[in-house]
């Protein structure tokens, strides 16, 4: 695939690139970077826009195989590139669970066939995600996984989790944990606090997350494993990660856009689009997450895109499934809500995700795969869920006015998404 991206502000903080230059792409790779480039290839005029190394959403549920009525690899990929992501890491809680090479291989081949975005599967930690015995991690690495996790579920058994942290080191894989003590959270459907008391809904206490983060950090430290905390949501968890990092631990952490934007007040009218796990928490927790983003405690913004068929979200609050979509709103919310300096934004959405997952990195350098995200930081737009490329409609951000958007996505030199005024 060939393409000449001209006149954009090219920004790759990892490689210390920040200037208005052109990028020539040939056969899907960056051939040269410089001013005033010309070539007999299709052109993309990025004047006034920012050209960044392609964004990577490392926490996405694609639902295929097994729950294709909610999303498929094809539609999830389309939603990803519409959100500015060149790549996603797909969580293993499919049906069947991705706990072996055949499901991994299926996901990769189906993605190659139908998804405009790159799909990197994450393999399960335990067989069937039952939390009992290790899955065939080595086999899955051969097939192409980039990390392991039992997400939507935690690994409750401390001994098993210790083994996972030890074993995954063989393959330099990050071990990603959805931190939730299932006994403490049992039956809960929203954050345990004033709102759950008023609404008469059973709460998920912050301690359900904190006790497991605490346990995991100790295990990570004592095993030397590569530990990544998925979707942080509490103040105490942020503080513990901050301290662990200060003590030199190999810990990384992610946050979702909904967790730094909304609080448990969003549930007030029993809106099932405010139901997810971990739940939306208090304003104090939101403040702590923003502090963690600002001071580097939190490394990555990842959407935890969790599509559900519209019928399921129309059930009563305590029967509706957890989760909201997020691929198409993540970048807009990051811009609008956080007002981060651009290099930090790119770090959290591209460089850090790449560093954490077991992928061959891409960026703005000659020879790199040409995966680029083109941003317009000042573009004003309104998110219309009915225009979403996802099959599902479960988003609380419908109708939100946002400033800042990915206006084009280039994967392997191919312009797979474009939204220009």
């Amino acid at each position, binding site marked *: 695939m060939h393409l000449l991206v001209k006149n954009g502000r090219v920004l790759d903080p990892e490689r210390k690139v920040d200037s208005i230059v052109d990028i020539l792409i040939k056969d899907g790779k960056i051939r040269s970077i410089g001013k005033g480039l010309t070539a007999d290839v299709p052109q993309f005029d990025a004047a006034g826009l920012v050209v960044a190394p392609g964004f990577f959403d490392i926490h996405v549920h694609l639902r295929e195989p097994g729950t294709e009525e909610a999303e498929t690899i094809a539609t999830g990929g389309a939603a990803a590139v519409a959100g500015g992501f060149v790549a996603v890491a797909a969580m293993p809680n499919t049906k069947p669970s991705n706990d072996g090479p055949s499901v991994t291989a299926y996901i990769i081949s189906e993605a190659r066939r139908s998804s405009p975005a790159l799909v990197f599967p994450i393999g399960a930690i335990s067989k069937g995600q039952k939390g009992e015995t290790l899955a065939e991690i080595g086999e899955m690495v051969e097939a192409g996984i980039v990390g392991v996790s039992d997400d939507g579920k935690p690994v409750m058994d401390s001994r098993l989790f210790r083994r996972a942290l030890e074993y995954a080191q063989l393959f330099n894989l990050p071990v990603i944990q959805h931190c939730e003590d299932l006994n403490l959270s049992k039956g809960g459907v929203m954050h345990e606090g*004033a709102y759950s008391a008023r609404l*008469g809904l059973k709460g998920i206490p912050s301690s359900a997350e904190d006790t497991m983060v605490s346990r995991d950090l100790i295990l990570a430290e004592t095993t030397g494993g590569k530990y990544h905390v998925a979707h942080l949501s509490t103040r105490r968890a942020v503080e513990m990660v901050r301290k662990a990092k200060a003590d030199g631990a190999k810990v990384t952490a992610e946050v979702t856009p909904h967790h730094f934007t909304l609080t448990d007040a969003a549930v007030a009218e029993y809106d099932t689009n405010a139901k997810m796990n971990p739940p939306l928490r208090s304003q104090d927790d939101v403040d702590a997450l923003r502090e963690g983003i600002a001071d580097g405690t939190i490394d990555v913004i990842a959407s935890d895109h969790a599509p559900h068929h519209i019928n399921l979200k129309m059930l009563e*609050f*305590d029967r509706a499934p957890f989760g909201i979509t997020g691929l198409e709103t993540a970048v807009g919310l990051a811009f609008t809500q956080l007002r981060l300096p651009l290099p930090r934004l790119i770090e959290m959405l591209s460089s850090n995700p790449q560093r954490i997952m077991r992928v061959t990195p891409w960026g703005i350098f000659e020879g790199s795969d040409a995966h680029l995200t083109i941003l317009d930081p000042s573009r004003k737009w309104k998110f219309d869920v009915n225009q979403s490329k996802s099959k599902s409609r479960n988003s609380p951000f419908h109708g939100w006015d946002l400033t800042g958007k990915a206006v084009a996505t280039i994967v392997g030199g191919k312009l797979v998404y474009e939204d220009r005024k």
Partner: protein
Amino acid sequence: MKRKDLLGIQDLDPQEILDILGTAETLQEISTRPIKKVPTLRGKTVINLFFEASTRTRTSFEIAGKRLSADVVNVTAATSSVSKGETLIDTARTLDAMAADCVVIRHGSSGAPHTIARLTKARVINAGDGAHEHPTQALLDALTIRQRKGRLDGLKVAIIGDITHSRVARSNAHLLTKLGSHVWLCSPPTLMPVGSCDLVTTNREFLHRTYSMEEAVSGADVIMLLRVQFERMDESFFPSTREYFRCYGLTRSKVALAKEDAIIMHPGPMNRGVEIATDVADGPYSVILDQVSAGVAVRMAILFLMLGGQS
């Protein structure tokens, strides 16, 4: 009634509450006539949509509607996993197709009436949703209290029992604090919800919480007992009913700590020997039967205020 639906006491302002109680008192007279009927709601369709079993509340609404000459239809719906595919939107559409004027909903999930109310043209009355609210219960409790005590402000009301799972506790806490009485929520520590100090949003200083039954009951004008809901408890909230009764059961000696003319209330049905000693349940200050009569009056008042005017 200005609002379309009655979903919770939390939404009502004190004047609305007093209007309902005043209307209830006036309509109570109908139940004393030889022919207990007025034609006011003739031709109106009221549907009792009960997803949770309840003979008491359903019968009360049925009688209330029929005394006003409304056509009352009882529909028992299932919420089991068998009906997993069925959504609340289907329920709402069916109601509109039946041209229901009013739906009385009792549901095991907090918030279900809210969802249905958004989707249907019919006016929705919440007859109890999960652990959230049971507004007509609080209103009938208030009517009973006012008839016995002459007022609803400046009283000490102790609400004792499983607060976490109790919609009756929540609705009563909202109503009584709004009208200026002090409410003491009392339960074992395992059954006092986290965040309950922020339970009410107006007159917050009128809401108190304690684990001590003695503290709650001392000098109380009203003692309200909640039913221990064994069917909702799948975990270790307290070790045994014997322990519960010892610490939180209402016995004669505890009643003696309250005011001499204190009244004892219970939403029913009672677990004798668990939340209340038998001799106290049948004692002179129990107003449990008054609550039943007040229940019909309050429900008549709400149906009248909702359906008896301009449609």
